[in-house]
């Protein structure tokens, strides 16, 4: 199985690159040839602190198949041992939060499997058309309080049950595009209103083009006065798979 992958990302408008709180693995662009390929995106919650680090650990950990408990311990060891002022300490003690959408492509069986939590989204594309998207399937399904994985794992009563899983088959030439919520919601909105969401998505070829599209969508508004794209961090991981 041959894989070609590229990742584009940008922070919220008005924020610096250091303040970007999504994460992707791989973060760079490249090619690989192997029987198995693992990739993921995660969206660190703005409301918490040190979410960027948690999101990074989650995507890296998914690709390495590291246990969540080990990732949570690593986050805690790094963050809670820092010398922090009272407010930063109290905030950090309540943990960091992130979504996770991870994808495993198997070259031997021609199948894929995914592990999903929250509203980061995977679009399966074949012949420039959407085969399906998961876990989100339409614009309406996005809201301001997606399911999130907390770095304090004890916050979750049943850790395994919070994830959903999706399996399927791929054929040579398929694409899987992993997106965090703001751009995914915008793509659905375009698809549902004008029918050109998927066309727009698959035409994104580089970082500059993504930045221009997002700047425009953030600055224009729908009939209810809401920005067409929420001002949020944006991550796009585009994976082409060939037999």
């Amino acid at each position, binding site marked *: 199985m041959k894989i070609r992958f590229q990742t584009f990302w940008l922070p*919220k408008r*008005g*924020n610096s690159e*250091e*303040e970007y709180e999504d994460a992707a693995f791989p973060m760079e662009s490249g090619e690989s040839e192997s029987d198995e390929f693992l990739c993921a995106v995660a969206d660190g919650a*703005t*409301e918490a*602190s*040190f979410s*960027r*680090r948690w999101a990074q650990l989650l995507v890296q950990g998914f690709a390495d198949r590291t246990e969540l408990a080990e990732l*949570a*311990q690593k986050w*805690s060891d790094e963050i809670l041992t820092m010398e922090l*002022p*009272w*407010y*930063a*300490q*109290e*905030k950090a*003690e309540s943990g960091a939060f992130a979504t996770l959408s991870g994808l495993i492509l198997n070259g031997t069986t021609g199948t894929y499997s995914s592990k999903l939590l929250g509203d980061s989204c995977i679009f399966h594309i074949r012949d420039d058309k959407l085969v399906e998207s998961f876990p989100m399937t339409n614009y309406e399904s996005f809201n301001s309080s997606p399911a999130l994985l907390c770095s*304090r*794992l*004890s916050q979750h009563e049943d850790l395994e049950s919070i994830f959903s899983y999706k399996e399927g088959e791929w054929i040579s030439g398929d694409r899987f595009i992993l997106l965090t919520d703001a751009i995914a919601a915008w793509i659905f909105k375009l698809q549902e209103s004008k029918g050109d969401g998927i066309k727009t998505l698959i035409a994104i070829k580089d970082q500059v083009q993504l930045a221009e599209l997002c700047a425009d969508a953030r600055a224009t508004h729908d009939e*209810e*006065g*809401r920005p067409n794209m929420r*001002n*949020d961090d944006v991550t796009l991981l585009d994976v082409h798979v060939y037999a």
Partner: protein
Amino acid sequence: MAYLAEISRANPSCFVFLIDQSGSMQDPFGSITGTKTKAMGVADAINRLLQNLVIKCTKSEGIRDYYHVAVVGYGGKGVKPAFGGALEGKTLIPVSDIGNHPFRLEERRKKTEDSTGAIVEQTIKFPVWFDPTSYGGTPMNSALQHATSIVVKWLAEHPHCFPPIVINISDGESTDGDPFQSAYDLMTLSSTDGDVLLFNVHISSSNHQPCEYPDNESMLPDQFGKLLFSMSSPLPDYMRKMVGNEGIDISYNTRGFVFNADLVSVIRFLDIGTRPSNMR
């Protein structure tokens, strides 16, 4: 559609809290809170609120100035900023200054869960910015005019901000004239994103059931309650949803007002009134 503006460091919003410090505030709250005076209960609630606000604005690199905050006391000593310590005498302060300059940092014991879920007792820092005080009359009219002067200046500098929210906490009637016109002047100020929101919390020494978020004045027992209702802004859509999620009946006329509040409803009201809608 109003109340959609992003709250960010480039486009911050502001809160103004008006705190009644008149003599009657030294009476105890209703039986639910035992011997704690209303002044003590409100001071605790405001300190806790400021702490939560600072924490909400805290990110990995420090506190982001999403808000500027004024806490103004009114009582026998007139109308003046209520912060103590390094912030004494200051009116509208960026939230980072509040976080970095508490009057004092008390240590309190708190039961919490460790990373394995076991209950452990932990020492936590409890920041205090202002102490209870209670003396003299209730110059609510002047306090509202003072809030108006703060908000007018803010809006001139931040015309596109999420509208400022003013929360007035009092246990009695104004002693410096009918406050309606002053309240009306304040409520009709606006940014490009909507009118200024004025909310009122009337706190009580009695054990009467609080009347929370009424949507018409007939629910209120007397003229004073009706006056405060008329001085309270209707809740914007996002806040109506929050109130509804608390199990309280809401309608399009629901106002940001609690009459006969006990300490529990004061804390809940402050939490809902200051929860951000769109912080980036």
